[in-house]
């Protein structure tokens, strides 16, 4: 390292910080990109619900169904159909039951009739979301540390990459195809630079989301280890209103929900996302409506609320939320951009494309490492380290998508009443991934690529076809009901199948490519060129 210039030293650092955990970073990027569509994927994995369509009367009908299913509940939470899911999702807690995010009982109702729909046991998009930062099958804190360390290495790779890239502006739109290693470098550079703000933002915000675990020393030192004190000081918690006297709970009919929803829709352009009813059927009932969409990232995209008296339907005053301080605002902007809970369809697709470009950036870097060392390999013969990187490349870049496709296939093929069904969908994912690793280790490198990419193209493309043959078919549902969530997923599956097929096409033998011009001598038989 001594005697290298600043750029050269950073070039070395970029290669190693990128390569060592590149396969893990690729998995984090891919599952992260998919997590932007977590709700949509979960919906797609419940085919019995695909016929659901939103209806203007959904709020009142959902309340009527809740009245029948859980009249004595302490709280009903009703999430109305929306652009990400055309069903009504309900959750309720019995009297005295502790209210937590995943507790209580839940059901999925049809968007029009508000009748319960069948749910098949599946972790849905949540498996991919959790994998993104907690991996699987290991203690949560350990997994978060592993992902956190990988993310820090990603940050170092990004910064050292920018330092190394001498002609970052001049080369901004440059791509020189069919030039072997030069082309792979151009691809890696283009994918990195064209979405550089996204890559930097998503990486740094990922670190911030884990920051109290990775870097707790500020909090611990200033608060003497009392983290709760820090969180409540920072939380801008509005003062809790005085609890209502418990004695006077008398039965009272719940007010009609429809007029309340219409009142909110007059104010909110994107409509109502969620209705929360506390103590329904009593005089203490309250109805809280939550707005769909978000105002600003500065307060985490907090949406508007309206609170009504449950018996009379009168609008109550909501306490003003305090404005966040500058540093909390910075944290809120970064974390909101990473989690993207608030985003509308267009922004969600833009960020998904960013995630795909990021995944491709990591993948192209790992391929570039192999391609760069091919002349050396041909002279000096095979080297265990190179062979390891080659096999890991195929097993992660092509193998992970194959594993995800296997997860989707298991969702479609496993019998609904099967025991531990959700676990077996996940087992299918890991079995497929291990099979890809074994395949990559034993097949010659180029053949391994072609075979896995080919398998991927088939697996993805046949999924929508399978649905069609089974009497589903999201495209028909989309055209007839106007429900595009499942159709969007099917389009994406077909698009990625086409991309994989294109990859197989690029890998066709060099002689076939020589139709118009002789192959560049530097490529050789092993050489792969986009």
């Amino acid at each position, binding site marked *: 390292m*001594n*005697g290298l210039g600043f750029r050269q030293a950073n070039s070395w650092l970029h290669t190693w910080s990128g390569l060592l955990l590149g396969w893990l970073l690729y998995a984090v990027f891919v599952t992260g990109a998919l997590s932007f569509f977590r709700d949509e994927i979960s919906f797609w994995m419940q085919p019995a619900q695909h016929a659901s369509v939103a209806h203007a009367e959904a709020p009142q009908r959902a309340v009527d169904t809740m009245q029948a299913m859980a009249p004595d509940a302490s709280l009903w939470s009703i999430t109305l159909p929306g652009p990400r899911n055309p069903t009504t999702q309900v959750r309720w807690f019995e009297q005295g039951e502790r209210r937590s995010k995943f507790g209580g009982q839940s059901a999925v109702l049809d968007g029009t009739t508000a009748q319960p729909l069948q749910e098949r046991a599946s972790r849905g998009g949540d498996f991919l979301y959790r994998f993104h930062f907690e991996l699987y099958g290991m203690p949560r804190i350990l997994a978060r540390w592993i992902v956190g360390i990988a993310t820090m290495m990603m940050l170092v790779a990004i910064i*050292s990459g920018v330092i190394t890239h001498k002609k970052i502006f001049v080369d901004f739109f440059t791509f020189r195809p069919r030039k072997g290693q030069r082309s792979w470098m151009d691809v890696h550079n283009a994918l990195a630079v064209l979405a550089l703000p996204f890559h930097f933002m998503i990486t740094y915000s990922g670190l911030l989301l884990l920051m109290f675990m990775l870097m707790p020393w*500020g909090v611990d*030192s200033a*608060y003497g280890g009392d983290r709760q004190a*820090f969180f409540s000081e920072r939380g801008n918690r509005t003062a809790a209103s005085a609890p209502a006297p418990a004695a006077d709970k008398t039965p009272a009919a719940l007010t009609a929900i429809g007029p309340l929803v219409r009142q909110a829709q007059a104010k909110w352009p994107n409509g109502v996302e969620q209705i929360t009813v506390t103590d329904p059927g009593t005089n203490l009932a309250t109805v809280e409506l939550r707005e769909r969409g978000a105002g600003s990232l500065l307060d985490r995209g907090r949406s508007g609320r309206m609170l009504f008296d449950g018996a009379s339907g009168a609008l109550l005053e909501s306490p003003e939320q305090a404005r966040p301080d500058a*540093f909390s605002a910075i944290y809120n902007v970064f974390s909101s951009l990473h989690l993207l809970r608030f985003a509308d369809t267009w922004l969600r697709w833009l960020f998904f494309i960013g995630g795909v470009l990021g995944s491709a950036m990591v993948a192209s870097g790992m391929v570039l490492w192999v391609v760069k060392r091919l002349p050396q390999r041909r002279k000096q013969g095979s080297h265990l380290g190179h062979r390891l990187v080659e096999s890991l490349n195929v097993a992660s870049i092509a193998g992970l998508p194959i594993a995800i496709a296997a997860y989707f296939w298991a969702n479609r093929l496993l019998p609904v009443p099967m025991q531990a069904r959700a676990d077996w969908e996940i087992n299918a994912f890991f079995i497929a991934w291990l099979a890809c690793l074994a395949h990559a280790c034993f097949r010659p490198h180029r053949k391994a690529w072609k075979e896995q990419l080919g398998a991927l193209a088939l697996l993805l493309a046949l999924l929508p076809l399978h649905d069609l043959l089974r009497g589903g078919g999201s495209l028909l549902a989309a055209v007839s009901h106007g429900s595009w969530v499942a159709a969007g997923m099917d389009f994406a599956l077909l698009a990625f199948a086409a991309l994989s097929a294109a990859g197989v096409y690029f890998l066709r033998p060099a002689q076939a490519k020589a139709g118009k011009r002789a192959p560049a001598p530097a490529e050789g038989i092993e050489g792969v060129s986009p």
Partner: protein
Amino acid sequence: MSTKKSSGSGAKLSPAGHRWNVASRTLLAVAGGYAITAMATASLGLALPLPRAQAVMAATLFSFALYCALVIWAYSAATARRAWSVAAVLAALPAAHLAFRWVAA
């Protein structure tokens, strides 16, 4: 070409020398960098002229940028010795501040 282990910036390192160099810088980057960042975050959280919760937030938000810069320094410095020397100087300030606070408590 020199064949002995050397830390002069002009002389080329032997393969063994190169490995020690990389190991040394890596230790500095991973462990030293984290230690300096941790101390700096704790120190800034106490020292910044802001309400306590905001000072801690500001220090922690910034910490990852600092760590990244330290890693890059560890590998970019002309020699490993220079890398460690500067890092020691950078560590001294927050370490002294924290030691002072601890003694004064």
